[in-house]
């Protein structure tokens, strides 16, 4: 139970930081809505719904990158990560706490993005909502680990997308498949499996990422 108390304290801290600084969430909201607006005007009028769903997933992935780029900014600025790493708690609690905050930011961005998508393109189905929820977990699991790795590098803004995008291709495949495929359950199960595998891998490897 102590482990989850640590995770709760760390996640609460991240939400409080965002509430105070408002650095990340407003940028994510603006980005995802403006991307959908641009797609609305750039797609030819006779384009089918298949392209629209694909573009929604592009917008979600790039919105996640925007949020993840800032995920460890507060820790980096004052070397606070050193302080957290020295604490006697399990270091994976830092990853899980940060990951929960990233999921919360993504979910809030999508609360705005999905109605905007429905307004500009196609109606939002329950399969799409389920796929987005599952995708958020996978994006946050992988992205938080990579954001911690990138935070230690000078080229972090470049490094994060380069590492992140190839690893989340399965999320896009699963998300698009669940949105437009004949058998969305199969793609939702695929997203769930991705979440499970990458959450375990990220949880287990975070300690090695934040220590030498």
């Amino acid at each position, binding site marked *: 139970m*102590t482990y989850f*108390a*640590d995770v709760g*304290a*760390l996640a609460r*801290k991240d939400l*409080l*930081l965002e509430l*105070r*600084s408002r650095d990340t969430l407003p940028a994510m909201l603006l980005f995802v809505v403006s991307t959908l607006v641009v797609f609305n005007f750039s797609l030819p009028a006779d384009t089918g719904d298949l392209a629209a769903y694909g573009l929604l997933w592009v917008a979600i992935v790039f919105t996640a990158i925007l949020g993840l780029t800032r995920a460890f900014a*507060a820790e980096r*600025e*004052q*070397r*606070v990560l*050193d*302080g*957290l*790493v*020295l*604490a*006697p*708690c399990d270091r994976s609690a830092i990853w899980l706490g940060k990951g929960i905050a990233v999921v919360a930011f993504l979910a809030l961005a999508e609360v705005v993005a999905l109605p905007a998508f429905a307004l500009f393109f196609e109606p939002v189905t329950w399969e799409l909502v389920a796929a987005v929820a599952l995708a958020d977990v996978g994006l946050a699991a992988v992205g938080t680990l990579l954001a911690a790795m990138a935070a230690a590098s000078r080229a972090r803004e470049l490094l994060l997308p380069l590492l992140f995008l190839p690893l989340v291709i399965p999320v896009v495949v699963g998300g698009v498949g669940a949105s437009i495929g004949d058998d969305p359950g199969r793609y939702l199960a695929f997203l769930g499996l991705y979440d499970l595998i990458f959450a375990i891998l990220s949880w287990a490897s975070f300690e090695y990422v934040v*220590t*030498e």
Partner: protein
Amino acid sequence: MVVIAARGLGRSFGEKRVLRDIDLDVAERDLLLVTGPNGSGKSTLLSLCAGLLAPTAGELEVTVDRGRIGYLAHEPLVYRELSALENLDLYGRLYRVPERRERIGMLLERFGLWESRRSPVSSFSRGMQQRLALCRTLLHDPALLLLDEPYAGLDDAGAELLDAELRALAGRRTLLLATHDPDRVGRLATGSLALA
């Protein structure tokens, strides 16, 4: 009992060798002064002892558990957007400090930050940030204290508070103290290490 033992300890960053061939034995309740010019490796040595860096040469053994080390770095290692109280509460939870609120209140009073406890750290002066960093370092009553230039940024009153704290800790806790001003705490030291 030896708390820190180093044999041929070295640390390089790429091609640059910052620390080389350090032999060191620090016994329990010793206060070791680490002196030397800028770039001589004082901060690197403390980071190695804290476990934040790994040696690239030699061996280093620190027998104190991670949770019983207090590390004061150049930066205060606190969140600028949070208040002093919120920062210490977070660290208190992570370090499982018993009677956390009382301990935090006592440290904030002692270091003259009680009145500013709810203000964001970003509004603190350099000296206030250093006082807060000292509160964070002492919060969990560590057995081993690694203090990197603890007087940096402190005004006279703050420096006197730190003098009193070090006098109280000397002989009770193990301390490694990196400083440019060895005269200030020289009387309390049980040994010194001069880095070139």
